[in-house]
């Protein structure tokens, strides 16, 4: 019987010819993060199964805002040295893990990755089964394996042709609004169709990133020339892309026609609260902060579109706009391309690459009753600071347009 992408990858990593949804299996895992090293040290275990495939960075509070964090990062450095982890990234060569690790060769098509951050579904853009595991990731550090329940697979077919100025973010906000933020619960979601092929790799990446916002265990794309172009020169190993069999069994197939899509914005409270921007525009929702950053939408083309919108314009007097590139590499590219200069001239705070504002950690936390329009992935109460603050989610273009207007705005009015 035919298999889906996830079933094929899991079967291959379990040393089996086939697997079926609902089975519990043990799989060899190709790469992980280094959260559990401290625990291994405490137990007197002196080596990891494969130090070359462990990746570590401090991105959530980078560089450290407090002595506690500074001491923790100091510990990370020591442990990375002790366990011979070459993929430890110092500040200045750092970034948000999902971007940074990909830039440094963590993902190759057909692989299985599990690590300790919920947006680990991001790696699915590389035709990888990539997902979160938290405290149990130490099993990988010691044994190179982890248990999985074989998920049911769901196919999302993105049909039509994406209109100009609509991007992956608008697509995923539409999908989440239509199908709900739990349609992918415990499942592997495979994205395919003409729009999947049309989108840039960065746009697909946003959709894999927000896989977890629709509940998914994996959020996988097929490998094509755009995938390969990104991976070129980053990998020290061969790989084989994995495609679903024509007779693969999907629990559900969801069809979308995106030819008439408009920019989308998710209203506060839940990423599934997506509405068309033209409709929300009429509600005149004022914003105090605009955030262009996070592992969802802070890649070069995201900064570029914001810069194109903001060139020769300024951030609204009642708004502050924060910009944080997805990684130091993106920061440098955007600097050289001139986009950061345009954004700074428009009155944005250009920060280094950090998670900070996205999770209400530092470098731009929201106060009581404040409203933020953000290019990130979550708008739950309390997400970006005060539990009384509100967060709207949108594409980089919509965030930039809203920063200029001082209220939720349609980027198409500015381009």
């Amino acid at each position, binding site marked *: 019987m035919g298999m889906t992408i996830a079933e094929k990858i899991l079967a291959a990593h379990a040393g089996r010819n086939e697997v079926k949804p609902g089975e*519990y299996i*043990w799989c060899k895992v190709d790469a992980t993060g280094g959260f559990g090293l401290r625990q291994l040290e405490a*137990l*007197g*275990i002196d080596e990891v199964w494969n130090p070359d495939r462990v990746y570590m960075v401090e991105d*959530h*509070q980078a560089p450290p*805002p*407090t002595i*506690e*964090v500074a001491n*923790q990062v100091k510990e990370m450095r020591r442990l990375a040295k002790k366990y011979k982890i070459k993929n430890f990234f110092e500040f200045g060569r750092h970034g948000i893990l999902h971007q940074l690790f990909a830039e440094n060769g963590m993902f190759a098509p057909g692989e299985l990755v599990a690590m*300790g*951050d*919920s947006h680990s579904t991001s790696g699915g853009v590389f035709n990888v089964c990539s*997902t*979160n*595991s*938290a*405290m*149990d990731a*130490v*099993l990988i550090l*010691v*044994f190179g394996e982890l*248990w999985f*329940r074989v998920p049911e697979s769901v196919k999302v077919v993105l049909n039509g042709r994406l209109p100009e100025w609509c991007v992956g973010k608008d697509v995923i906000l539409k999908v989440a609004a239509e199908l709900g*933020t*739990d349609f992918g*619960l*415990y499942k592997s979601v495979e994205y395919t169709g003409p729009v999947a092929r049309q989108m840039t790799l960065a746009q697909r990446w946003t959709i894999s990133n927000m896989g*977890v916002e629709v*509940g*998914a*265990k994996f959020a996988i794309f097929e490998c094509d020339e755009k995938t390969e172009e990104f991976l070129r020169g980053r990998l020290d190993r061969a790989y084989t892309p994995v495609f679903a069999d024509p007779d693969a069994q999907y629990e559900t197939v969801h069809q979308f026609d995106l030819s008439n899509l408009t920019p989308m914005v998710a209203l506060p409270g*839940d990423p599934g609260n997506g509405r068309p921007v033209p409709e929300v525009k009429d509600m005149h929702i004022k914003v105090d902060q605009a955030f262009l950053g996070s592992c969802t939408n802070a890649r070069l083309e995201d900064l570029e579109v914001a810069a194109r919108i903001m060139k020769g314009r300024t951030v609204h007097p009642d708004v502050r706009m924060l910009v944080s590139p997805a990684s130091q590499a993106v920061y440098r590219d955007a600097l050289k391309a001139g986009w950061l200069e345009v954004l700074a001239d428009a009155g944005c705070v250009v920060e280094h690459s950090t998670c900070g504002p996205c*999770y*209400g*950690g*530092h470098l731009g*936390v929201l106060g009581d009753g404040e409203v933020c329009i953000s290019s990130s992935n*979550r708008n*739950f*109460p*309390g*997400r*970006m*600071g*005060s*539990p*009384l603050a509100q967060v709207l989610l949108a594409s980089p273009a919509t965030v930039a347009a809203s920063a200029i207007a001082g209220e939720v705005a349609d980027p198409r009015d500015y381009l």
Partner: protein
Amino acid sequence: MADTVCEGNVWKFGDKISTDLMVPGAYVLARRGITDEEAAQYCMRANRPDWAAQVQRGDILVGGVNFACGSSRNWARPIQVLGVSVVLAESISRIGLRNGINTGLPCLVCPGISKFVEEGERLQVDIVSGEVRNLTRGAAIQAQAWPQDSPPFQIMMAGGFERYFRQRLVEAGKIKPQVAAT
């Protein structure tokens, strides 16, 4: 492992209770080094500010759909510290479920539970068979039992990942049994 049958009073929460509600980033994550006990005081602050102070040891938490959605923050630790004995929900996020079981907080998916019980009623839950009895009303409903040969069941019965991991390390000869016991 604690008793496999838990009995307690119910606290009922709605759909999509996120980890941002149970482990608020600005209060907890941004302050590393905060103790589990202190962190637990901020649990549900945005949606139910008095809850952390009211919940009693042995109480049962009932959630709606996609309970513990959101980040991989360990939501189960504060819930466990506050004394909750078992979590039942219509559905639980994949990461949330894994974190709950790993923490040693029994979690069962139980479709229909939100209609089956009201806040303050008393439930008896068999975490092995999945049988849930409403002692206040005298009715029963079936939660999804974990397959007994599955790793999550073994982890739950070991009382959490920590102990399960040590057992595995001893079996593999990576650590001595006395290290495992400490």
